[in-house]
């Protein structure tokens, strides 16, 4: 049996031919926590997730899920997992209800048990009034909620969600987060990947920041922000690139932590207002606008990699 977490990974590598998608990562996931992989597209999150789902073979390294090796115990591990892929992979030949029923049958569950659970899960996913409809006409948010309901049919001990709210409108995202929170309160262990820093902050107890197949840091959202950022950030915008460059050259060497982006300058400070006034309205290169805000995981990622999460 495992000594540590529900999931233990050491020096985990995934290669596709020449391409190294996951380049030696170490982490553990503890029972009942919500664990996140935060990183831009192409960071290796999905490849890592597919190894955790015991569908994609490990190229190198050590991986145990429930203390079992996915290479030899894949079916036994998958029987205790819930998986929501980025592409919902719903069965469009079947109705909403039959998607749950047939998926439950893949797990070898008896029909009567599936029917009981399906009614509850459709309620949970707010899809009860759609139960006998086909899947295709459903909205993106409904499809994602159905994919989540379907993945809960076996009452999984670990629930894996790959980019759960990508492509959803804000309202659908909030409903989804609320549903995930209620699972979290029930004590389900959640593992999610996301390139949305707000999603990671909202949901994750602990996360790893991934870039280019590697983990660049690990901690709770608060710890990561405290470790890499100041409490506040000033976002200043300038009339021209030249003016912004001038301000950057003046601030460099003053010990102030700055990040110069294409469209704005970020200045990290514990007291944003004082920096904001320092940048000064009476200065010849005064910003056209300044905004003082709380530091976020986006800033952590920028500090760690020099890039924003959305670019690429």
């Amino acid at each position, binding site marked *: 049996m495992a000594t540590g977490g529900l999931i233990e990974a050491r020096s985990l590598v995934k290669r*596709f031919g020449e391409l190294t998608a996951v380049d030696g990562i170490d982490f553990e996931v503890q029972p009942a926590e919500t664990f996140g992989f935060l990183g831009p597209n192409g960071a290796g999150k999905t490849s890592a997730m597919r190894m955790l*789902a015991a*569908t*994609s*073979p490990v190229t190198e390294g050590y991986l145990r899920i429930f203390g079992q090796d996915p290479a030899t115990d*894949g*079916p*036994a591990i*998958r*029987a205790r*997992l819930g*998986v929501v*892929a980025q*592409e919902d*992979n*719903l*069965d*469009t*030949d*079947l109705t909403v209800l*039959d998607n749950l*029923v*047939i*998926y439950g*049958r*893949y*797990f*070898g*569950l*008896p029909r009567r048990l599936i029917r009981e659970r399906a009614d509850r899960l459709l309620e949970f996913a707010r899809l009860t009034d759609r139960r006998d409809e086909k899947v295709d006409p459903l909205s993106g948010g409904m499809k994602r909620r159905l994919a989540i309901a*379907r*993945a809960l049919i*076996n009452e999984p001990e670990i629930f894996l969600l790959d980019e759960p709210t990508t492509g959803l409108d804000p309202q659908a995202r909030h409903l989804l987060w609320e549903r995930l929170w209620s699972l979290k309160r029930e004590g389900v262990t959640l593992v999610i990947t996301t390139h949305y820093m707000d999603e990671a902050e909202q949901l994750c107890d602990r996360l790893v920041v991934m870039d280019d197949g590697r983990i660049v840091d690990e901690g709770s959202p608060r710890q990561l922000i405290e470790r890499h950022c100041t409490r506040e950030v000033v976002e200043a915008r300038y009339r021209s690139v030249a003016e912004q460059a001038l301000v950057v050259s003046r601030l460099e060497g003053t010990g102030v932590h700055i990040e110069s982006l294409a469209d704005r300058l970020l200045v990290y400070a514990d007291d944003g207002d004082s920096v904001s006034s320092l940048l000064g309205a009476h200065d010849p290169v005064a910003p056209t606008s300044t905004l003082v805000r709380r530091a976020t995981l986006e800033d952590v990622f920028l500090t760690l990699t020099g890039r924003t999460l959305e670019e690429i």
Partner: protein
Amino acid sequence: MALPAILRATEREARVWSKLWISSSFSTLIAPVLLLIAMGVGLGSLVETDPAELHGLDYIEFIAPGLLVATAVQAAAGSSLWPVMAGQKWLGFYHAMVTSPLRPGDVFGGQVIWTTLRSTMSAVVFLVAATLLGAVLSAWGVLAVPVAGLTSLAFAAPLTAFAATQDSDAKFDVIIRMAIVPLYLFSGTLFPIEQLPLGLRALAMLFPLWHGVELARAATTGAFSIGDLGHLAVLGVYAAVGWRWGVRTFARRLAS
């Protein structure tokens, strides 16, 4: 008792079919029987031939076992190509199946078993019709049904494996037109293979359909021979090799 994993994948197909069977039953159940009537009774009344060339059979007695197996194979070939592309690519439901305890090999096997079952069901209907038309001479004729099933499997396994290696359906029509249709016509189904030039005869003998037709004819006429064991072996080899190929390609496609 939970269903074996491989049959849980079959159950999905059965579920989908249970909603659509009426619309699909014409092509798989009714059309082959109409063909038998048209060819056997209609055309057969015009066919005047030396009985020796048809192994001493009436025309309808000759073609009934041939069409029984050939129509089963034709249906199996179709269901081994496009539906596999749907599962793997167009609709992607195979990818959801392997997040459950099912393995890629179960998904493959479940699909092939379903295809074989459906072809076998259509063979049952066909055999009943052929019997009513007086085209079945022996009670051993019931064995034509498992023969049709095995021959369908000998096509379904390798074709399903092949379909999973493809990224589009571009080659599927070619396979049907260039392989399945000619085999349907020239595998001893509508006329004895001895009528073919030697080269073509040898070619027909390379593929499983002729072997299935010969076996089915032995069953409906009750005239078995030692060579039938060879036919069985050929069908078994196609099925076994196709099955192994399929388990491997599905693993590569669904668990990479």
